[in-house]
């Protein structure tokens, strides 16, 4: 089983409470099961007796995880509990035990196709091509990350192969990626292609600062907790004149409302709504404050459940400054 490769994580997390305060799901369901300890305990039961994988309640718990990297980032030993849950999802898929709604979502994601348009030496994969002059654009669905998080490794690879083919056809050697989940997925996967996050690219363009403006930056789970706290988004926003104010009560919690699970809102809308509600409750002045997120997913979900929120993506924030 895939979870067997993560026995060190099971052993470390099953009786450890030290990061429980950071589990986004545990913080809204309050269930012991929805913490790294709770999940490690049930997967320990599965390790002891594989028949336990058939327990529907265990399966539901595994798919409730938001795959936030906040706990792993916090842990002094950085035990990869997210990796353990992903392994369990692969085991569930391979055992044919995947819940119907997960299966339906996977089928939808498997149909992704990719097209390249325009002229240029650099390929841009995102929604704001206007920000990048002289670039070709690559469009389509998720490049395979979402399927990977659902446990569909084979299907993820097939979608990624299609993506890779499109990149190869573009003949570009640099790929700019906007969505943090896609960036995390692609950054080490494309041989011979330099993959950069859009913030790194825009930062190097040395944009002019606009009038100072206060904003709350909602960290991306991927950029902060998966990819070692990428500094470029904050630097870019500062360069553009945004005065970033700390959000919430601390810098450790993930406020990215399920971003780590990529399609979390489609999978667990009720939980996603709770995550969004929690973010809004922590806001000082929801209607007047400006929020910036690097993730389109975060913007879309927060807006869906709280239409009054004023939130823009990182690229939109930069575009607004350029337009001034």
């Amino acid at each position, binding site marked *: 089983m895939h979870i067997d490769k993560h026995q060190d994580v099971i052993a470390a997390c099953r009786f450890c409470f030290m990061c429980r305060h950071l589990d986004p799901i545990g913080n809204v369901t309050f269930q012991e099961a929805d913490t790294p300890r709770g999940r490690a305990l*049930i997967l320990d039961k599965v390790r002891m007796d594989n028949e336990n994988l058939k327990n529907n309640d265990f399966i539901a718990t595994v798919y409730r995880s938001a795959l936030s990297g906040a706990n792993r980032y916090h842990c002094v030993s950085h035990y990869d509990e997210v990796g353990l849950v992903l392994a369990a999802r692969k085991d569930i898929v391979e055992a044919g035990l995947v819940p119907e709604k997960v299966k339906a979502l996977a089928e939808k994601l498997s149909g992704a196709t990719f097209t390249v348009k325009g002229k240029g030496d650099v390929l841009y994969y995102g929604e704001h091509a206007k920000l990048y002059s002289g670039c070709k654009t690559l469009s389509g669905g998720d490049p395979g990350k979402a399927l990977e998080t659902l446990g569909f490794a084979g299907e993820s690879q097939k979608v990624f192969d299609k993506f890779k083919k499109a990149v190869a056809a573009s003949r570009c050697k640099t790929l700019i990626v906007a969505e943090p989940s896609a960036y995390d997925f692609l950054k080490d996967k494309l041989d011979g292609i330099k993959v950069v996050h859009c913030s790194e690219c825009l930062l190097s363009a040395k944009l002019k600062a606009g009038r100072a403006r206060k904003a709350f930056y909602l960290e991306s789970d991927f950029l902060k907790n998966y990819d070692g706290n990428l500094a470029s988004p904050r630097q870019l926003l500062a360069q553009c004149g945004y005065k970033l104010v700390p959000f919430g009560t601390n810098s450790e919690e993930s406020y990215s409302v399920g971003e780590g699970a990529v399609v979390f809102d489609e999978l667990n809308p009720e939980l996603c709504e709770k995550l969004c509600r929690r973010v809004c409750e922590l806001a000082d002045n929801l209607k007047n404050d400006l929020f910036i997120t690097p993730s389109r997913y975060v913007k879309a979900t927060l807006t869906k459940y709280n239409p009054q929120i004023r939130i823009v993506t990182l690229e939109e924030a930069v575009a607004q400054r350029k337009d001034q």
Partner: protein
Amino acid sequence: MIPPNSYLYEMIRSELSWVVGDDHVQTGDSDKLGHSIDYYWVPEVWHDRGQKLPPPDFVVYPASAREVSEILKIANTHNIPVVPWGGGSGSQGGALPIYGGIVMDMKRMNKVLNIDPISMTATAETGINTQHLEWAIEKAGYSTMHFPASIACATLGGFIANRGTGVLSTKYGKIEDMVMTLEVVTPAGEIINTLPVPRHASGPDLTQLFLGSEGTLGVVTKATIKIHPIPESRKFHAFLFKTMHDAMGAGAKIMTSRLRPCVIRLYDELETARLIKRVLGIDKQGAYLVFGFDGPAKNVDLELEQACAICREKEHEDLGTEMGQAWWDHRYKFFYPPYMFHLPQAFGTLDTVATFANIEKVYWAMKNTIRENFPQAAFIGHFSHWYEWGCMLYARFIIEEPPKDPREAVALYNKIWDMAIRAAIKEGGVINEHHGVGLKLGRIMKELYGPAFKVLEDIKKVLDPNNIMNPGKMGFRAKGI
């Protein structure tokens, strides 16, 4: 345990869901498993060896004192046990549902209700995670000054239930010193409040009665605690002494000279060699002593210098402020895997408190008991919460390879506790200082208290005649007895 396919089970489940809503009555295996194991070694090893743990029948998440009250009334009607659960990180088995019944998980009651900057107090629901509480108080510009290793694991109610403490207890006190007043739901379901201030002459102190009652006398639903300004300065200093005895002398003198450190920690020679080396990288022989002061910068410098002068009276190595600060910076690291002891090791914290006159005798009594009777066990200790009159001994035994058979392992474990704690009590030690009694030490309560324990038993009988509240814990009678 109530058979899950019985109509009685469904009757009780539906009654509970009328109170808190369907979503807040959990009966699934995932959540039951999480509530079957706390931080006590016995259920951990039981799970590890594939044994079945007693699960709760229902895990219920109330959102208000009124809901808590209604749940207790249902439990009284059906005469089923109720075990309050905070973070579940207690080490004494106090929150284990040993007779099934209802685990009342308090984490939905997690609001900070008020911060009073005039009186410097904060009021919160007791299900709040203490790290979340501290963050909220810090955002308002203050601090609880409650920094236990389990700050991120436990709830405010958990600390209240077990008379918990934090690293800065020497200056800011244990939780019982921090609490102003409590809202409690009695076992009969009545919602009561204790007096609003902790100093009065209006009879015995009800607040203190519920502090440390481990969910046996009711459910604490709300607490007002003291808060503090963020200190202008906080500094640490560390020394290495040739012997633990010398270090103890220095630490005791700092306290009895009435300096006010916020923290003192003294590690015996073996723990210095094992843990201080591993976590802080200080590879030296001797006993490591660290202390700190906080407050106005001038006061801190003055008191720190006086404490250092006391330490310099004995043979010592001055490790300086850097090695003191390193300890503060890494103070929680000791409790993360793999630094914390873990299975397959057997380990236990023989938490004991005594006066300065007795504390070393307690240390040696426990150490010798373990050395003579359990040669397979190592004994290490540090002295971690210091008062004007004495301090707490955080002694630990560790067995690298306990018996494979879980019954044999638990029997051995229990025997070590029994003998070591009885040896400590004989020398004037009290079990314990901040972990609580729970399931682990209940059997020793009568011996510890003597005839006075009957007073506690009578209070329990009056408040909880049906014995629904956390039966079998803290030395009180088991369910059905």
